[in-house]
């Protein structure tokens, strides 16, 4: 069967089981958009290519399947660089297809030419510049294989226009060998002696902590984690990337560690004598000042990426491999700590003395953002997916919502990309149309990517957006307040410029607003009742509200600042 490169590309995506592409056409990718008309694949036409990338990420994070985005060359390609970098930091499986100028024009500064494989070489797991139509099936299959196996990540495929237009004889690789990836070995055999060493370390541990990272979700290891945690009785912390990997309602769950972590989670890691790291990478937002981090802890480091071992913190035992397989191996080897009674007594004391808290909501003043989140959570359907932007609202959403299952928390962790929330929520809703999807967004973030609500309205993707409108780039404001003597530099936005309700309405969405506490439940109920179009709620929140606890940047986790009201009582 003779196909054009463009037809072969679309057919390859169908062959991979792709059901949706997020994208926006242009000159160099034009040939590929033609056979798309005849394809069963749904295409979602975004308003900015950054939106396409974050939607693909949201889709991937909600479904566990790779997200696919397609854009044109030059500015189309550079517009999607931020989501690619974001996916790279958070190990999210993406396949991004970019148009490229015709092969013969590459290197001549042709119209809309840019070296996107060069630009993205440091922020993709791998990228390809396709050199013939015949190799397209192999390259697409390889791209999906790379994106989804081992440590997942974004893969970019750059397709010159003439190659999309030329013809090839259709074929499809039937084996991994045909993918021609001689240097790619995503897995290695389990090191049995390391498993034994881990078991021995655990047997003598008195203060172990299961330090659960995003890799646990990527490995779909949550059932194994639950079983392992319950059998051993070890306390669990879940990082920002792992919220939902272990039920928040579980009594062994201490919550999120790190810069804005729960006191008990931070303290338990600090005083631990054995950290069992499951697909986590000792990020600086978790460790605080490295030389003050968990000083007495030995480390069992489980990660599928060998390069993570000893990168930041020396591991006493390294288990290179899939988290799920490793937990199974540890279980089979009978890994078990001694009595943890004293350890739990200590942890319960921390939990009692320093619970997550915020100032009582006042009835007339501006809203407490934490209370808004809790109000949304109270009436949210079970399994609701929460996406967020980046800033204070993100931290409150990570703290105050109870995550019970994988894929229900979608955020930008490693890169901290403002504007992630709205498009990521759209992608999540496309992937899980059965779920309610809320975005907890900031006013600053919302303004970066709000145009995708036009996409959502046009494509019938009814997400709900809660803007915690504090009129500020709040997280930056918090740092200026606390560490720059309240010298506020370029952080004020405005509560009503833009008018978020009118803006929402102009985009075909329902726009609502709540300024006082008694309005909160009513607008949330109204939003919950709308299931056909996107809803945006402008919650006017208190600009002075800060995220606590907080480990100041560069400080040791021992210097964690709890909520001001808790400071007198601190031991």
């Amino acid at each position, binding site marked *: 069967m003779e196909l054009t490169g463009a037809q072969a590309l679309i057919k390859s995506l169908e062959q991979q089981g792709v059901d949706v592409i997020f994208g926006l056409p242009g000159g160099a990718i034009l040939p590929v958009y033609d056979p798309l008309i005849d394809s069963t694949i749904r295409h979602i036409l975004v308003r900015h290519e950054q939106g396409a990338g974050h939607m693909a990420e949201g889709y991937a994070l909600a479904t566990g399947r790779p997200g696919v985005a397609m854009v044109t060359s030059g500015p189309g390609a550079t517009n999607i660089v931020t989501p690619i970098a974001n996916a790279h930091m958070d190990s999210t499986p993406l396949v991004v297809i970019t148009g490229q100028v015709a092969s013969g024009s590459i290197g001549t500064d042709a119209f809309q030419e840019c070296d996107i*494989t*060069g630009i993205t*070489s*440091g922020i993709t*797991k*791998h990228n390809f*510049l396709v050199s013939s139509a015949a190799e397209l099936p192999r390259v697409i299959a390889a791209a999906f294989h*790379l994106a989804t196996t081992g440590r997942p990540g974004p893969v970019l495929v750059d397709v010159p226009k003439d190659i999309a237009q030329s013809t090839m004889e259709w074929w499809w690789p039937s084996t991994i060998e045909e993918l021609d*990836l*001689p*240097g*790619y070995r995503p897995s290695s055999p389990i090191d049995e002696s390391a498993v034994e060493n881990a078991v021995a370390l655990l047997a003598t541990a008195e203060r172990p902590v299961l330090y659960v990272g995003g890799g646990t979700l990527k490995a779909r290891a949550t059932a194994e984690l639950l079983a392992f945690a319950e059998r051993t009785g070890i306390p669990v912390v879940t990082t920002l990337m792992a919220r939902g990997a272990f039920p928040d309602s579980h009594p062994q769950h201490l919550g999120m560690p790190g810069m804005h972590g729960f006191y008990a989670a931070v303290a338990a890691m600090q005083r631990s004598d054995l950290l069992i790291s499951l697909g986590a990478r000792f990020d600086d937002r978790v460790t605080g000042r490295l030389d003050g981090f968990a000083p007495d802890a030995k480390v069992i480091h489980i990660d599928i*990426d*060998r*390069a993570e*071992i*000893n*990168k930041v913190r020396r591991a006493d035992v390294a288990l290179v491999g899939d988290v799920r397989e490793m937990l199974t191996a540890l279980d089979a080897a009978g890994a078990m700590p001694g009595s943890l009674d004293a350890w739990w007594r200590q942890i319960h004391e921390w939990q009692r003395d320093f619970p997550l808290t915020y100032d009582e909501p006042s009835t007339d003043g501006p809203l407490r953002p934490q209370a808004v989140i809790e109000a949304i959570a109270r009436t949210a359907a079970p399994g609701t997916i929460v996406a967020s932007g980046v800033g204070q609202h993100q931290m409150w959403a990570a703290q105050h919502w109870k995550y019970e299952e994988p894929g229900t928390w979608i955020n930008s962790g490693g890169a901290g990309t403002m504007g992630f929330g709205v498009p990521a929520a759209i992608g999540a809703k496309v992937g899980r149309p059965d779920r309610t999807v809320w975005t907890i967004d900031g006013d600053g973030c919302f303004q970066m990517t709000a145009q995708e609500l036009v996409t959502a309205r046009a494509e019938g993707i009814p997400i709900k957006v809660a803007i915690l409108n504090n009129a500020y780039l709040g997280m930056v404001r918090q740092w200026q307040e606390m560490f720059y003597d309240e010298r506020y530099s370029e952080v004020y936005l405005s509560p009503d410029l833009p008018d978020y309700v009118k803006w929402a309405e102009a985009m075909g969405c329902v726009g609502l607003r709540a300024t006082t506490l008694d309005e909160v439940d009513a607008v949330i109920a109204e939003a919950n009742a709308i299931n056909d179009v996107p809803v945006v709620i402008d919650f006017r929140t208190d600009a002075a509200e800060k995220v606590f606890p907080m480990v100041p940047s560069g400080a040791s986790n021992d210097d964690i600042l709890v909520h001001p009201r808790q400071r007198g009582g601190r031991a």
Partner: protein
Amino acid sequence: MSATPEPYVGPTTTSPVTHHILSVLVENKAGVLARIAGLFARRGFNIYSLAVAPAEGHARFSRITIVVDAETTPLEQIVGQLDKLVNVVAITDLAPRDAIERELLLATVPLTDENRSAVLDAVASAGASIVDVDARAVTIMLAGTPAGCDHFERRLESFVDVELHRTGRVALSRLGTKKN
């Protein structure tokens, strides 16, 4: 004719103190070298020297010999990150004591009546050879240990207007040592 003198085997001065030699087999694809160079730049690893050539009997693979400074970055990190590059097929880490390292030096030295015999002496005593000559200059080649090349380079510094190129080293495991 005098016997070829032993190559110089003193301490190396221009190599990093704790250098390691990575012999990296890569797919012979466009952009591979840029990926490797980019990785080193991005991660702040220092490359001391780098030599690339098609691998033994292959059109598909190339061998890159990279000398790295293992003082500033743990070798484990460098190898771990390199190994993640999809086009990198195999990495052999050679500790200097387990390796046979060689490199090639070419130098063109202007000849004068005054320096002629000193130049020829230097060539003979280093075991170098003359590969090109005209009325005004000679081009000299030395294939030897990096330390031998260092030594010869210093010796040539006593002549004026020398043009000198070195290839960077290539290496293989010393026979009888375990490959890893």
